[in-house]
């Protein structure tokens, strides 16, 4: 029976190639998104599945109410909580503190690399069930200054050599001995630090003032994470009660404080994916994100399935005779239903194959690779199973209505006179669907165009500072004077400046500024720059002179912009020169000069008060300005590399041309591609839906068309007669979409202080694009019917 169904399904597919193609293509497009989401979901749900006692292991949560009455939930808890629990309650088996206090550079073997570090205790291995690739879990973190490296980190530092016994230098924290390597690839946990240090290293560092005191501080809610596993037989209720008791006693210790902290818990298996908590660690999606992704994929899928349904119903007149014959031959309703469902599932399986190729194509070639795909996911049997299941689900979703409809056909009716068969009159719904699909597509197109226009503008507009002939080099802790001197001597270099951050994105920080010690401070954003920066960036000093960098590093002068002038209520630039101001309550400096306003932040913000300070230790980036006539950029870069190597033998130079880096940061290519993909899918599905509707209606009206032709109607008049109702739908869609698209775009543009306008151009281009597409789709079908020979149609009646 099944073989028979499949055979006839294939013959139908190959006989009606156009229908098959659009069905398969439309479904594959949306299924492709579905597959991507499934892959992501599979990853989302693969965390924390290896813990030994998941049913009695928990992470503790802080429910915080601030003095102002704001409530928020934190994934972190004060570090003293864990020892207290362990001491107070016998039902607590193990507690794990995780202190995420420090991140920075660690060095070994001439390698200096950025690492994230958490400090924890030996129970870490017991509660989570982490296994070590090398080293002993009992001895790994039991003494101060021991560390365990993740497998990837071990490879970064020591390649394939066994790192156990080697030392890593953590700068001010001192050196640590590697005591184990954690397999972080097969044991997927929401916790994914590069390095785990022994927590008992911390008290000494706190005592010596290297680190702030956190391990015994009940007020610090942000640095520690607490995990608890209970003894066998103990219940979650007991732990909740225990936590409540602590909360109460904890609260009474500080009665003057109105703020309140209550401790709660979550199961270790519901962390990733889980509730959206503040101050989370590591990785793992929130339930909200998982749901949002699934819903978007489902809507796209549903939209495509609707089209399949639409097209199949459009074709059901052609299949009606077959149904009649089969029923007369003894087929039951259920058998007909199964046949058509099988057909839909078959189509959906074919779509799956195409969707898989589409997905692999996206993964290989798309700019969206990193947005869509999780590194290292590959097709496993389980995943393939999910894909198949998804495909069958899609088939059922798409095919159930046509199968139900076809299976109810009564042979007496369909075999006698096809024209009398009334397919259900849900035209209103179908029209609404078409309008909805086109409205959605048009809104996306309008929005995408506006988006593109704005980012284009931002990438090329004049920000008021120079971005040409500049190479930016992150200092990464290198001595700025040494490197500056080294690079200044290179032949192609005009001058070198230093800054705490590149212009055009964010200020480096905020200074509290007062004109006299007693008045209320105002907040002014700042950068730290050296004396060559103003010239390198082509900034204009409208009054006064440049900032001075003192040899002893003392801060004596600042530059302010015109907005700061207003903020400080100084009436003219000239009056500001030489004025003393107080920074952050402690530093007294003079205003050396006033800068003409420029966009030191992105166009998201209008120009606000800003000042340049000159603290050397804040410098992060060197700006190398090349000479105007420098012919050989490659040679210059090689020279810079050599200079860098001289000072930093162990590390690689990173550099970027400011103009490319800047426009790269502004063009939002990934978002554009994402919107483009969505628009493409939306439009394609909408057009397929329209096509189905047109074919269905036009076929149903072929008798009417024939009669009109016999009465003398011309091709043109028939075409306009048939197209009118569809064009009306498109017109309605445009009428809805234009204002919505315009409002969405305007709202989006509101995020930018400096912005383009949506413009008639954008709107009319989008509308004519959609209209053109619709006319092609409608026209092709209508033309066919209008040209048909009336005699053939009428004879069949």
């Amino acid at each position: 029976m099944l073989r028979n169904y499949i055979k006839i399904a294939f013959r139908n597919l190959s006989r009606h190639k156009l229908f098959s193609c659009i069905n398969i293509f439309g479904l594959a497009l949306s299924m492709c998104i579905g597959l991507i989401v499934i892959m992501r979901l599979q990853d989302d749900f693969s965390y924390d599945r290896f813990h030994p006692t998941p049913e009695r292991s928990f992470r503790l949560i802080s429910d915080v109410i601030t003095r102002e009455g704001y409530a928020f939930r934190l994934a972190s808890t004060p570090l003293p909580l864990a020892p207290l629990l362990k001491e107070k309650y016998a039902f607590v088996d193990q507690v794990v503190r995780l202190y995420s206090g420090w991140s920075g550079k660690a060095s070994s073997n001439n390698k200096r690399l950025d690492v994230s570090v958490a400090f924890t205790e030996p129970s870490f291995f017991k509660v989570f069930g982490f296994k070590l690739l090398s080293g002993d879990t009992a001895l790994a973190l039991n003494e101060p200054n021991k560390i365990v490296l993740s497998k990837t980190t071990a490879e970064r530092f020591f390649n394939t050599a066994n790192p156990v016994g080697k030392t890593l230098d953590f700068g001010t924290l001192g050196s640590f001995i590697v005591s184990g390597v954690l397999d972080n690839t097969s044991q997927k946990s929401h916790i994914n630090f590069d390095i785990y240090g022994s927590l008992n290293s911390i008290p000494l560092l706190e005592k010596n003032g290297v680190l702030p005191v956190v391990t015994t501080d009940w007020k610090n809610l942000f640095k520690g994470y607490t995990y608890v596993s209970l003894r066998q037989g103990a219940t979650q209720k007991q732990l909740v009660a225990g936590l409540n008791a602590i909360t109460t006693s904890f609260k009474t210790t500080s009665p003057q404080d109105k703020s309140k902290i209550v401790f709660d818990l979550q199961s270790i298996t519901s962390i990733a994916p889980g509730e959206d908590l503040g101050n989370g660690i590591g990785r793992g999606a929130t339930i909200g994100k998982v749901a949002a992704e699934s819903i978007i994929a489902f809507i796209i899928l549903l939209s495509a399935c609707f089209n399949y349904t639409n097209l199949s119903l459009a074709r059901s007149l052609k299949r009606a005779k077959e149904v009649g014959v089969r029923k007369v031959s003894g087929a039951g309703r259920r058998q007909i239903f199964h046949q058509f469902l099988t057909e839909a599932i078959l189509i959906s399986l074919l779509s799956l194959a195409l969707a898989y190729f589409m997905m692999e194509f996206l993964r290989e070639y798309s700019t969206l690779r990193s947005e869509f795909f999780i590194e290292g996911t590959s097709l496993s049997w389980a995943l393939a199973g999910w894909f198949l299941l998804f495909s069958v689900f899609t088939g059922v979703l798409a095919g159930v209505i046509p199968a139900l409809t076809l299976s109810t056909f009564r042979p007496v009716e369909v075999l006698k006179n096809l024209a009398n068969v009334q397919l259900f009159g849900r035209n209103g719904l179908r029209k609404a669907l078409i309008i909805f699909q086109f409205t959605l597509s048009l809104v996306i197109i309008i929005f995408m165009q506006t988006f593109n226009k704005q980012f284009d503008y931002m990438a090329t507009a004049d920000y008021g500072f120079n971005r040409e002939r500049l190479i930016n080099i992150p200092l990464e802790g290198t001595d700025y004077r040494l490197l500056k001197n080294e690079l200044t001597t290179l032949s192609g270099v005009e001058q070198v400046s230093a800054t705490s951050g590149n212009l055009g994105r964010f200020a480096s920080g905020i200074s509290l500024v007062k004109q006299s010690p007693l008045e209320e401070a105002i907040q002014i954003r700042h950068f730290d720059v050296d004396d060559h920066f103003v010239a390198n960036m082509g900034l204009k000093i409208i009054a006064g002179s440049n900032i001075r960098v003192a040899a002893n590093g003392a801060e004596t002068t600042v530059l302010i912009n015109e907005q700061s002038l207003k903020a400080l209520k100084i009436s003219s630039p000239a009056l500001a020169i030489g004025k003393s101001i107080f920074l952050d309550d402690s530093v007294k400096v003079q205003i050396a000069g006033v800068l003409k306003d420029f966009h030191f932040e992105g166009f998201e913000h209008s120009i606000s008060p800003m000042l340049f300070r000159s603290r050397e230790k804040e410098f992060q980036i060197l700006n190398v300005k090349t000479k105007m006539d420098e012919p050989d950029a490659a040679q210059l870069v090689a020279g810079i590399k050599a200079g860098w190597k001289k000072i930093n033998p162990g590390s690689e130079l990173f550099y970027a041309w400011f103009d490319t880096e800047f426009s790269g940061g502004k063009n939002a290519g990934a978002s554009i591609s994402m919107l483009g993909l969505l628009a493409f899918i939306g439009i394609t599905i909408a057009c397929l839906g329209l096509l189905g509707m047109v074919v269905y209606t036009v076929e149903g009206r072929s008798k009417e068309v024939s009669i009109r032709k016999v009465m003398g109607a011309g091709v043109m008049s028939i075409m306009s007669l048939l197209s009118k109702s569809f064009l009306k739908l498109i017109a309605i869609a445009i009428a809805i979409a234009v204002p919505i698209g315009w409002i969405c775009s305007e709202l989006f543009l509101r995020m930018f202080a400096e912005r383009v306008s949506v413009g008639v151009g954008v709107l009319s281009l989008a509308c004519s694009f959609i209209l053109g597409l619709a006319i092609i789709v409608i026209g092709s079908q209508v033309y066919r019917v209008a040209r048909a020979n009336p005699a053939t149609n009428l004879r069949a009646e």
Partner: protein
Amino acid sequence: MIQLRKIFKWVNSGSNRTFLLKDINLDIAEGEFVSIMGPSGSGKSTLLNIIGMLDEANEGEYNFLSEAVHKLREKEKSALYKQYIGFVFQAYHLIDELTVYENIETPLIYQNIKSGERKAMVADMLDRFNIVGKKDLFPAQLSGGQQQLVGIARALIAKPKLLLADEPTGNLNSKQGEEIMELFKTLNDEGVTIIQVTHSEKNAAYGKRIIHLLDGRLENVAQLQS
């Protein structure tokens, strides 16, 4: 075999009730060959459809092989006609996407007959109708007469007791029509009960009895000598 008692069939259009069949009383015994005649719209096809259980009378009793059809549910009726009745249509109604072989095989599939057995039965039928050479062709590749042969072969494959034919020769030329009628006669001689609807006196004459319908009424029943 068939007993129709006071069969009425009507359709309502607006407030008017149009009768398609009025007070039909008819008995057909096993082994008969009955022709139903009458002008267009006299209710011939309606009567045939009711006998074939594809349609239901609005009123009246219908007993088929001592089963009270008017009391059966849809599913039971379906099982009944699946087992006992074969249909032949004026427009052949073959499935375009299936070959001759597969078209003939279709009813067997729905009777859950095993593949090996099906093969033998279809081969027998192809043999008998002399269309073995055409078994892999699609209906569109056959002439009208050949298509109708396939249609009859399909109707007979499940060994029905009753063959219902709605103008089986209506779309055929006279020679092809004659061949089909000869075939019907042979089948009837072999014991298959046949009821056909026809416009042609000549074709009707192949039967043993002619039933004349007019405006939904049974006008007269003529017994033919044979």
